[in-house]
């Protein structure tokens, strides 16, 4: 089994290194093919591992020691259990699709080889993240995906900085740095959590840590839980560290699909699921997580309502769905969170790849107000995005329905009706903005003609590559029971109480109703043509929403600018004027006193004698003082 683990893990790395060798040469199709094939190998190995875990049980492998110091002994250890196996399959499946897709999407890009190198490196890091059997190994992957994300967001590094009005993300390089730094803030929290674990458990291996949860004090567990969650908040872009995710859309669209929808951003959810013995012991932190998740769900959905940027809308919806996952995990329904994670990965990747097709057709235009009526020229893409949007909206019988509905049931079951209500409302908003996007893009009047675009469908193999995702987006939910049975071998099972069982039918109907309601509103508003109301667009709520609650501006003004100014002060005022000036001042005092006393040395012997007499006098005084003292 070790061979399978290593195959699954290292195939993407090999692909990445292979592509890196050609990184500086112009496009060679070979790199795309080879990395895609290796990814497929990794996918197959993951599926085999999943089967093995299903049939036999978790497997474990230790490669070698990594850090050995004091009592710290951290190996490169990998364990594949139920959760990991599911994550691996999801990651490798989506990655394989995205790799094949990218062969078409990046066809004309100068950095073709470089792109595949980064992309495969990302998959490797993500696999390290999910497969590691200890917290520090997870941290390797955690930082690794951060760097790959930095590289990929900043892939078109040569674009110049724009003002926020022209481009809300300023520039790819800027967005990349923002993402990296935001994640670093969270990583510090995670590191602190790791230190806490180390000094209280003496080990970072999952099994040992979780085995000793019972012996740790409650306060300590809360501290660890909170610090680990801070790490998760950064990676999963939870409020207030959420701004980077929307800006990360500066990266090529396959990247958005893979990293910023399906895999990396779910790492935070994965961490909470992975640390479920810890979080089960501290339900109050869990409740806090659920509240944060719920808040982010509606907060992000509200921003998606008015946005005009195709990719940003999907990014906000990702944020919103991550909120759902955290709500589920926080409420103790870990397997539901994982289920939604997997389902979301499929339909959100599909949605992004569809958006990529549209962008391709529209020559990188992202404004949905400039599109419309595209279903005529892009039938396949329309179908894919339609399916994905339906799944996202949670319409029966697609995947999203099963997963999202279960989360709502959980919220109801926990008697946290506030959370349930907000999530329920968000479901309606989700349906509305998803179909606003679909109708504005594919239905209504053909506005793109005014702007001189000539849209066309993408290559056939690209469309075929997207098919598995579309199929899974439809059918994945049907396996809910099997999925639950499988992962609850590791995760705690979640039982609905009697009351909820009674209400189940009502809940489903209510949820479906608001989802369909959202779609109907979108249909009425946008299916014919783009209706714009300048009055509403000028109104304050609209402006707040379309400017992301002014949070990026606020961060700029409250943190970035003052930090830059403070740095400038620290350098020019403090370092130069105070610290260095003190040092130079001391030197100057010595120098000037030397210069002054040099005047004694005027060559006049008579004056010398006077000084000598004065010196003798001082010595005499000293002698007297000494004599008097003794």
């Amino acid at each position, binding site marked *: 089994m070790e061979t399978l683990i290593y195959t699954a893990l290292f195939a993407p790395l090999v692909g990445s290194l292979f592509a890196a060798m050609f990184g500086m040469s112009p496009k060679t199709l070979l790199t795309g093919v080879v990395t895609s094939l290796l990814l497929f190998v990794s996918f197959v190995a993951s599926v085999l591992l999943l089967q093995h875990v299903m049939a036999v049980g978790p497997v474990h492998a230790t490669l070698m020691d*990594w850090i050995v110091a004091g009592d710290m002994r951290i190996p490169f250890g990998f364990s594949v259990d139920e959760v990991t196996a599911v994550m691996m399959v999801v990651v490798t499946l989506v990655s394989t699709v995205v790799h094949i897709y990218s062969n078409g999407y990046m066809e004309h890009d100068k950095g073709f080889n470089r792109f595949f190198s980064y992309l495969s490196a990302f998959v490797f890091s993500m696999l390290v993240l999910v497969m590691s059997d200890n917290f520090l190994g997870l941290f390797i992957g955690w930082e690794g995906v951060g760097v790959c994300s930095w590289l990929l967001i900043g892939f078109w590094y040569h674009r110049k900085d724009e003002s926020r009005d022209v481009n809300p993300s300023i520039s790819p390089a800027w967005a990349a740095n923002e993402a990296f730094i935001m994640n670093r803030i969270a990583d510090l929290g995670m590191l602190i959590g790791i230190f806490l674990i180390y000094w209280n458990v003496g080990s970072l291996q999952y099994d040992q840590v979780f085995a000793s949860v019972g012996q740790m004090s409650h306060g300590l567990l809360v501290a660890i839980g909170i610090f680990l969650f801070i790490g998760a908040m950064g990676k999963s872009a939870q409020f207030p560290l959420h701004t980077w995710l929307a800006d990360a859309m500066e990266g090529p669209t396959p990247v958005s699909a893979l990293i910023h929808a399906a895999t990396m951003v779910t790492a935070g959810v994965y961490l909470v699921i992975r640390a479920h013995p810890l979080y089960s012991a501290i339900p109050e932190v869990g409740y806090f997580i659920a509240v944060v998740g719920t808040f982010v769900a509606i907060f992000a959905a509200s921003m998606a309502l008015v946005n005009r940027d195709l990719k940003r809308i999907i990014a906000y919806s990702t944020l919103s769905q991550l909120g759902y996952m955290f709500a589920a995990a926080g409420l103790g329904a870990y397997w539901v969170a994982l289920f939604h994670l997997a389902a979301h990965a499929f339909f959100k990747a599909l949605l992004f790849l569809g958006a990529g097709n549209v962008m391709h057709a529209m020559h990188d235009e992202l404004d949905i107000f400039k599109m419309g009526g595209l279903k005529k020229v892009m039938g396949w893409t329309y179908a894919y995005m339609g399916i994905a949007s339906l799944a996202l909206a949670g319409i029966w019988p697609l995947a999203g329905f099963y997963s999202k509905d279960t989360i709502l049931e959980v919220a109801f079951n926990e008697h946290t009706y506030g959370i349930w209500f907000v999530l329920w409302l968000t479901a309606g908003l989700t349906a509305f903005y998803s179909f606003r996007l679909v109708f504005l893009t594919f239905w209504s009047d053909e506005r793109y003609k005014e702007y001189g675009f000539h849209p066309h469908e993408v290559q056939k193999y690209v469309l075929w590559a997207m098919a598995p995702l579309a199929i899974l987006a439809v059918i994945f939910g049907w396996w809910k029971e099997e999925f639950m049975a499988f992962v609850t071998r590791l995760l705690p099972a979640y039982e609905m109480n009697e009351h909820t069982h009674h209400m189940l039918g009502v809940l489903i109907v209510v949820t479906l109703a608001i989802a369909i309601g959202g779609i109907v509103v979108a249909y009425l508003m946008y299916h014919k043509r783009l209706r714009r109301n300048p009055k509403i667009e000028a109104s304050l709520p609209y402006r707040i929403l379309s400017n992301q609650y002014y949070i990026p501006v606020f961060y700029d003004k409250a943190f970035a600018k003052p930090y830059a100014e403070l740095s400038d002060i620290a350098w020019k005022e403090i370092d130069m004027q105070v610290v260095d000036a003190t040092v130079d001042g001391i030197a100057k005092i010595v120098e000037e006193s030397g210069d002054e006393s040099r005047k004694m040395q005027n060559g006049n012997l008579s004056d010398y004698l006077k000084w000598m007499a004065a010196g003798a006098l001082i010595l005499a005084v000293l002698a007297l003082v000494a004599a008097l003292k003794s």
Partner: protein
Amino acid sequence: MENILSVLIFFPLVAALLGFVVRKESIRVYGLTVAAIEFLLTLWLWFAFDPNNAGFQFIEYIPLVSDFGINYYLGVDGISLFLVVMTGLITLIGIIGLGDVKRLKNMILSLLVLETAMVGVFVSLDAIVFYLFWEFSLVPMLYIIGYWGGERRLYAAIKFFLYTFTGSLIMLVGMLYVAYIYQSVAGVWSFSITDWYALVLPISVQKWLFWAFFIGFAIKVPMFPFHTWLPYAHGQAPTIGSVILAAVLLKMGTYGFVRFSLPMFPDASVAYILPVAVLAIIMIIYTAMVAYAQEDMKQVIAYSSISHMGVIILGTFAMNAEGITGSIFLMLSHGIVSGALFLLVGVIYDRRHTKLMSEFGGLAAVMPKYAVIFGIMLMASVGLPLTIGFVGEYLSLAGFFRISPIMTLLGGTSIILGAIYMLSLYKKSFFGPVTKEENKKLTDLNGRELAALVPLVAIVIWLGVYPKPVLVPIDNSVKALVTFMEEKAQTPEAKAIIHVSTSTKEAK
């Protein structure tokens, strides 16, 4: 090869003296050969070193002034071994990467003399011999900055010299006082560090001596607020000078803490954890901010050096094996990474004769290889896992966490602030469109530069993925050191704070 350490010390010196008769045309090859042989010798030292022996090895002992207990006393343990190896490596890399400078012969000979001094510092076990090499190392560096430096080279060189010299004089007074106490206790003079270790000093005396040594080391490190000589020295020094200054000379200060302060004054070291840690944290945060404000690439890296040295100090004063091992590893990794970064800045300076970030932009498109290597070093500098920078930083912070979680949190901002200034440097210089006409014609790294940088990249990744061969010898010696400190400590508070690894306890 019983006297390998003497060979290591004096081979470069003798070679430098012989070098005066070497012809100008062949001096580069000569310097390379000497540095390569020296590096191979250090490697041999590493392989002959017994990693399971925590004590000093390859000991040499020749009485010099026996009346005053001054001896030519050398030895290495796990703590100093890799600093010696790194000295050999960095000197070699530096000479490989040496561009065309005026008076090349003098430069290479100075470097070889400097190597003698640096190796001498790390292997001396006699305080006077240590001090001699410590001060001797200033002279070639003074010459290198003062002769090959930038416009204000004399100011920078003299500032560097006087500042560090002042500090080490105070340290010398401390050394003499320790020897004096030793004489009054034992009846004979001795400057042997191992003899001093055995000396149990009263706590009040320890406290004074701690500060005397502290000033000497802190200026060298350089710790806030004694750091202002460093930006000038780096700003004015030629590339090779900065490389060696950052990679090796600064490590002499932190090495001094581990070699002298901790084992000799365990109680005082524990008692002063708070002020030292506060200085270290100020150093980390404040210099990171100053680094962010810089306009000159080299100054960013110079200030980032100071910031990273703060983490090393935190690790050193963690008083447990994790932290101290981490800090020593971080010394190595910072040496390699900052050395490489200075070399990289030197590359661009050679081409454009400016280091201002505003002069660049979009370099990634023009010089892809350069951008890749710079990117790798940048990631190592910000402490990315699986690069060399992470291991030491992680261990140092983890170790200090046991002392104070809050201060570790503050010190840990290093990973955020480091990312901020390094990424903004990278963005300003490498990303964006190519705006300046003269940047469009820049040539990528040539063979010589690649030969200097690629080995460093390999080491950065190798020791990031598999640091064990280096960590184990360090760890063994550090565990012994910590156990020794715990036994020697007098106050119960100190005994409580110094944390002996459980594995060591079990071994007993």
